[in-house]
């Protein structure tokens, strides 16, 4: 359904060549799939989400490549048509999405605004749809009569998710939807979201820094580092046999809190400066399995039976002919 081909995003800068936040990303999301996009802050994961949703200002960003949604290249659509597509085909929930509600309007009026703009439902139909959506996200339908300040953070984020589903989109992009929330609320929202995704059959691109959380809910996980997707695998496979040293290091940051002995490891160093031209593998300076080639040659994508990995360790041996 969604196909992203060789996508590059560069933040323009007057002083330097700009920051290449997304570097030649390629993937697709089939119908009815929960995909997680994981990486540290500054790896370009949010930029990638925004680029797909067409939310980047073309004056400040240079976006290249294709974003195909059901055969239409979103990048070539005039802004009027893109506007019509948002909410109805693709919608976005942001990290601060719960604070994006208008504080002086009741929740139901914020839903109705979107519905009026994009459909011609009657008032009764709208009310019915709102009640249905609120129950879907485990909120009491009476919440629609509340003002945003009367709801807790978790409830607002639930309402924001309900709002994103109002026009039955095919794809919902969620950028760190639960990061500002507590562990218990986060858990219940993520579980709710994954149930809802399977019941209603839309696709999700769940952007998060939390690999542990994503592994629990997503069917497929893409790991991003320095603007590139370095590993892309079904969640169960990634859990058992992560191949990229970066993914392995990220997994080391988690532990079972009930285990007999618990220790946490981090990843030394910090991600590269994306303003610079990168030579070799960008993860090499922090990598535990670095080889000579990593500093000089950019790794190529290695296809796996399912998914792919971007690392010299797995490059097919070149056949030398005598």
């Amino acid at each position: 359904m969604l196909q992203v081909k060789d996508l590059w995003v560069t933040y323009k800068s007057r002083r330097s060549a700009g920051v290449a936040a997304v570097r030649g990303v390629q993937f697709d999301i089939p119908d009815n799939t929960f995909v997680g996009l994981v990486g540290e802050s500054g790896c370009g994961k949010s930029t990638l989400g925004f680029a797909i949703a067409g939310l980047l200002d073309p004056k400040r960003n240079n976006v290249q490549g294709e974003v195909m949604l059901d055969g239409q290249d979103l990048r070539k659509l005039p802004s009027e048509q893109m506007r019509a597509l948002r909410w109805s085909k693709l919608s976005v929930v942001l990290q601060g999405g719960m604070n994006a509600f208008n504080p002086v309007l009741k929740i139901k009026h914020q839903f109705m605004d979107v519905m009026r703009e994009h459909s011609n439902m009657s008032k009764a139909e709208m009310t019915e749809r709102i009640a249905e959506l609120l129950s879907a996200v485990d909120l009491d339908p009476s919440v629609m009569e509340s003002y945003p300040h009367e709801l807790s953070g978790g409830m607002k984020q639930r309402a924001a998710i309900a709002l994103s589903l109002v026009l039955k989109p095919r794809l919902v992009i969620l950028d760190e939807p639960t990061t500002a929330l507590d562990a218990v609320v986060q858990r219940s929202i993520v579980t709710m979201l994954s149930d809802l995704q399977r019941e209603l059959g839309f696709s999700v691109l769940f952007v998060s820094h939390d690999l542990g959380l994503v592994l629990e809910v997503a069917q497929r996980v893409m790991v991003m580092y320095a603007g590139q997707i370095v590993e892309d695998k079904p969640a169960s496979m990634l859990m058992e046999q992560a191949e990229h040293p970066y993914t392995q290091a990220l997994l080391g940051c988690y532990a079972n809190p009930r285990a007999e002995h618990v220790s946490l490891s981090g990843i030394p160093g910090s991600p590269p400066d994306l303003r610079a031209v990168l030579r070799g593998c960008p993860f090499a300076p922090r990598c535990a399995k670095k080889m000579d080639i990593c500093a000089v040659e950019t790794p190529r994508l290695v296809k796996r039976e399912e998914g792919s990995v971007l690392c010299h360790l797995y490059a097919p041996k070149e056949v030398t002919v005598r």
Partner: protein
Amino acid sequence: MSLREQGLQNKQTAPGRYVLELKDVSKVYEGRGHSTVAAYKVNFTVEPGKIVALVGESGSGKSTLARLITGIEKPTEGRITFGEWHVESLKSRQLRNYRKHVQMVFQDPFSALNPQNTVLHSIMRPLRRHLRLSEAEARERAFSIMSTVRLTPVEQFMNKKPHQLSGGQRQRLVIARAIAPEPELIVADEPVSMLDVSIRADVLNLIDEIRRTRNMSVIYITHDMLSARVLADEVIVLYRGHIVERGTSDEVLRNPSHPYTELLLESVPNPFEPKVRTASRAPEVSITRKQALVAPVKGAAGQGCPFAPRCPHVMDRCRTSIPSLTGDSRHQTACFKN
């Protein structure tokens, strides 16, 4: 400066002499027509060089306790003593002296730092203000603190401003600033929850190292059970101002016995032990904030366990009386189930 204050000032030497003790501490916020109990008869002590974690969700009262311990607010009832200070009755000047010994580290390293100040200035300020060091002494001490928190090479970091630092470096600067006046107690309110998972271990290790080398006590406030297990010696689980479970961190987290602790543990992202899906979908309450505020008042009025409305094992008794903590010093739980 009064004689008593001078006396207190002269006495300060190496950290590790004072015990923090909370005795029957309660805090009630009065609102229009309702009151909120943020702490209810809380008792605990923190020995020198120990790390005690206060865990719970937002609204559990953990940050309120931090505010009471640092003297930002006064308890409605009960006593807080730290060495010879009676924290609940300190006046503003004594409070300033007290804060030299009790420092806070906040969650958000972005807003806790003055964007105009360089790294060196941020660390030197408390040295000059609290320890009254000369410019040159403070500078030298600041360099040694910078190497403690690994903001090195020092020459490279000293003139940087907060926006030139990464999140982890910023939090290390906040920690550097907190340890500068050589406090005896550090109250760290969610110090890693805004950081990337990959650098959390680094900051937690730093806190652990500091308390070992300087024998400082740490109160570590978090909702993350995993980091509490890794860092703390003792864990205190709070729910709506009540201590529901406490004990050594290994004991409490490996054998949780309060249903609320179990719920918190279940919520930890843990890819190593896949959960039964939908298991935790029900417990989170769908009530408005108004209702949430009203609910704990009932508990405080002696009408039952605060967790009863969310508890999967609730019994009749739970709605009528508040369970008290039972068990030995290694592990105590306030629940009728046991």
